[in-house]
């Protein structure tokens, strides 16, 4: 029969029920251990459980992911293609009888990027005139110049870039990281999402889902423009009977009743865990308002992020908040640019020249500010910054001056902990239509992010639906060329 080393309810069961929920640090403290939570939490697995510790030494401890919702146009921002300028207005003919199709329209003529390109920095990266601030940071970035998606439809595409699967129901990158690493603090959520104040992205909350992982790993949404940025942090105004005194007195009695009940039920760990969860909730109530208090930042910092200016206020505020959150121990912050729907995002079907510049103007300065600020504080050394989108756009026109979706090639970049600065990996064809050399899939991208965090993407698994599910499904290669 099985050896009896487990405490009650078994350690495995305890972690399955509470794993990640209390945050890694709190849980480790409670259990007097620093073991990797992922291993224990996968209690339903009959597979071998990973041994203690991370898979290897991490290069980064936390992540800020900037997600451009809608499919940011690579050839109008980073992927400079002289052919598009030379042959603008011609029929698009990639040659060799290649079949050309677009997902929502009939392919139009070759469309010249209506923006100027220049090389920047020591690395000489090409950046268009839409991103003057980021252009000053290219030597800190590692570009993936030929990312590929398996789809060019927003819903599945966003799921793929966030969860590694085309269908709903799978955990996103932030949830996996939360599940694996837990939190660095016990007074803030592990994984925080800062959506565009204009609205949620395509797939809405599906992109921040914990899927089949314990719900504690789901992204906590902070609505920065709302009077109550975190839902249920405080009693609602509608509950008139909850005065601060009543709140305190109520919680006192609750603690007392729960303690007596625990004593009568002889140390049931779940009852104990629930008592702790109220104590942690109280800590969160105290800590959260401080995070949002941006007036504690210097005027120089506020200006750096573009606060106080209409164009950059929203994204700048959220980038600054992201820095404050990771500074205080939040493991993963996702900052979104662009809501769902036909406008106010990077999905520029109608007119690139009109639709793309405002998106760039809103994000360019804040993103550069975030990189500089993290660097100045020494945080960039072990913080990973990711810039991603669900797919790219077509080299030919849609309805005259817009571009349709293109999963064939697009651009993403990384910076920070463990990332080789000032490099580019991969190359698209002469049109920026399809990847030509060294493509990077979402699986490779995720594998690399996990690698930098000290995790082996092939070993970070959770048993569900008959398989040991991974963020990278059955694919993924770490892109060592962009790792220091």
């Amino acid at each position, binding site marked *: 029969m099985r050896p009896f080393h487990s405490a009650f309810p078994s350690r495995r069961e305890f972690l399955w029920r509470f794993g990640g929920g209390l945050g890694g640090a709190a849980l480790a403290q409670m259990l007097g251990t620093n073991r990797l939570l992922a291993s224990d939490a996968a209690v339903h697995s009959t597979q071998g459980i990973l041994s203690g510790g991370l898979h290897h030494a991490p290069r980064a401890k936390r992540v800020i992911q900037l997600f451009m919702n809608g499919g940011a146009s690579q050839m109008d921002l980073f992927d400079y293609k002289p052919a598009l300028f030379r042959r603008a207005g011609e029929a698009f003919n990639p040659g060799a009888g290649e079949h050309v199709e677009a997902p929502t329209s009939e392919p139009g003529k070759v469309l010249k990027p209506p923006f100027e390109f220049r090389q920047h920095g020591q690395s000489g990266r090409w950046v268009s005139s839409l991103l003057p601030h980021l252009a000053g940071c290219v030597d800190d970035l590692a570009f993936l110049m030929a990312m590929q998606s398996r789809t060019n439809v927003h819903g599945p595409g966003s799921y793929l870039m966030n969860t590694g699967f085309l269908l709903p129901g799978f955990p996103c990158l932030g949830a996996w990281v939360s599940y694996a690493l837990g939190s660095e603090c016990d007074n803030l959520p592990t994984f925080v999402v800062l959506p565009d104040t204009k609205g949620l992205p395509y797939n809405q909350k599906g992109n921040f889902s914990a899927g089949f992982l314990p719900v504690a790993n789901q992204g906590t949404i902070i609505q920065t423009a709302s009077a109550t940025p975190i839902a249920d942090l405080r009693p609602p105004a509608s509950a008139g009977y909850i005065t601060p005194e009543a709140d305190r007195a109520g919680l006192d009695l609750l603690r007392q009743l729960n303690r007596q009940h625990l004593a009568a039920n002889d140390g049931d760990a779940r*009852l104990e865990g629930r008592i702790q969860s109220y104590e942690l909730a109280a800590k969160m109530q105290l800590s959260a308002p401080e995070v949002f208090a941006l007036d504690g930042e210097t005027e120089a910092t506020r200006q750096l992020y573009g606060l106080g200016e209409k164009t950059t206020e929203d994204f700048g505020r959220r980038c600054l908040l992201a820095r404050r959150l990771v500074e205080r121990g939040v493991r993963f912050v996702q900052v979104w640019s662009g809501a769902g729907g036909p406008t106010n995002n990077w999905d520029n079907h109608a007119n690139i020249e009109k639709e793309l510049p405002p998106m760039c103007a809103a994000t360019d300065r804040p993103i550069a500010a975030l990189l500089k600020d993290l660097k100045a504080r020494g945080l960039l050394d072990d913080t990973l910054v990711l810039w991603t989108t669900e797919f790219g756009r077509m080299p030919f026109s849609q309805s005259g001056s817009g571009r349709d979706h293109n999963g064939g090639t697009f651009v993403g970049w990384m910076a920070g902990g463990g990332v080789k600065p000032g490099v580019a990996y991969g190359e698209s064809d002469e049109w920026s239509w399809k990847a030509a050399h060294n493509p990077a899939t979402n699986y490779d991208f995720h594998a690399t992010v996990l690698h930098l965090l000290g995790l082996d993407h092939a070993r970070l698994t959770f048993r569900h639906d008959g398989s040991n599910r991974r963020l990278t499904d059955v694919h993924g290669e770490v892109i060592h060329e962009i790792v220091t």
Partner: protein
Amino acid sequence: MKPPGSRPSRLVWLLLLAAWFPLPGLWAATVTTVTTNLWSLQPLQHPAIPPASGPSEWRNNPIDAFVADKLRQLGLQPAPPADRGTLLRRLSFDLIGLPPSAEETAAFLRDSRGDAYERAVDRLLASSHHGERWARHWLDVVRFGESQGFEYDRIREHAWRYRDYVIQAFNDDKPYDQFIREQLAGDVLLEANAVSVIATGFLVAGPWDQAGHSSASASVRAMVREAELEDIVGTVAQTFLGVTLNCARCHNHKFDPIPQRDYYRVKAVFQGVNHGDRHFPGGSTNDWSYAANASQPEATFILNRGEPDKPKDQVTPGALEALAAHSGELGLAADSPEGERRRRFADWVASPENPLTARVIVNRVWQHHFGRGLVATPNDFGKMGEPPSHPELLDWLSAWFVSPDGANWSLKRLHKLIVTSAAYQQSSVISKSVISESVTAKRSPAGELNAASPITESPALQRDADNRLLWRFTPHRLEAEELRDALLALSGELNPQMGGPGFRPFRHVTNGGQNEYFASDPAGAEFNRRTIYRISVHSARDPLLDSLDCPEFSTRTPVRANTTTPLQALSLMNDSFVQRQAAKLAERVQREAGPDLKYQVDQLWFLTLAREPKPAERRDALKLAREQGMASAAWVLLNSNEFVFVR
């Protein structure tokens, strides 16, 4: 109750036991060398009921004989019966998802007749709330959603009919084999009717990619359709058979004896099924149901790596080939009529000869009564799933369930047999001296059993901390819907209206074809219906229910997570819905108990916890109620562990 059929020889039985018993090394060796010996694919065994043992109340029900036998082998004794208040609360949440009313608790505590408990079981099984509770379990498994999901996420206005179908089926105790046939082939059965057509909502309850289907690109459309069929095939196989057939889309199953060919044969059965609204027999032209819309499919080919543009060999429609005693050859030609495919497949599933069908449903029912299945992986009875903790009991129950002399496919008979067992009625307390001397000496060195901490003094905890052998009742936190429904029941605000379109506690905005939903908490009777009637729109999730592990609508959820988090605590502390019900509960106890605060506090305890307050509790609650109001006291109890857990 006698087990139907013959019993295997003692030697066979011992061998089976050896393969089943949870010794990981032995188990792995057994099934990797001879995969076709996978336990779940073997015909149902008909084990003899072990001789009764244990306390007297453990001698009346075959279930107890099996459970007690296993406990005895481990040298453990069961816990004493739970006290009656605890027991009624447990039973009531279990069978109808609601707490007992104060009157029901009082009547039950007064009822000294020998069959008082059985009467309570019968009353609850006859309640129309029973279907509302158990339909929720089923809807989790079949990934029931009422919107398309993905970027547009349009509402399926008529999907609620399937939800009502499931509730009604459980309330009517529809024979499970008929329940299967209707969901798989209800539109093409010879006796097809409105109910059976609506039942095929099962097949199309998963997400549907509107943007992908309307793509200008043929390859995108083909890929989207292939993913949609994987959802249907995977859900059919996991729901009824506990087989992860979806794992064989791209290659032979890595662990179970399921060739890739099997996946495509079953896909051929369902390849004609499409999503959409449809009329049903007897309905008016305004009556629609979101259900299977079938048409004759094209030829089916095995796809290399599951990719639609890489066809290999053609296949005929069929079922699984690994069930030696129940052939998956359905006698269907490659071009056989669409309806005939699903009819025959449904017959193959809903057969007493199919050992998976009975084992899987018996295990699901057991799981929701005890908190864990006899097989802890209810959608995966394969090699990577967990072996059964009580293989003989699972087979005895499965054989009994399908036998005309047993339950004859009646789920209510199965529920009753389980909840009237002594194993179910045990207390959740942890006894500290439940081991016999002789076994102690034999099993382990004395030193090994001694632990310093008082909570590990119990031998049962040391031997079987997870309580797989059922030496007590495992307490569990209320599920999201139970908790919300209980708050409404206690506050007196529960609107018992059954069926029909669900309520929509959100603001709905359309933006260029995309639907956006902003969850809110509107007050009013319309929104005070049971949670199962909250429309399951993918993008309109409820933060309170989310924090309590309400699963994703698009993912098959055979076992819910049961987490405890600070954000969950914040929800229960501050959510406006919880606050409102606390205030209403306070008004109710004031109304029912009269002006005396002491009686109000007593009534509050009785309603929420099914017991009287202890003197110290009464004193402290009185103080809080006097100083901060009765709503504060009500709020405390609704947040308390004793309320939130079922013991």
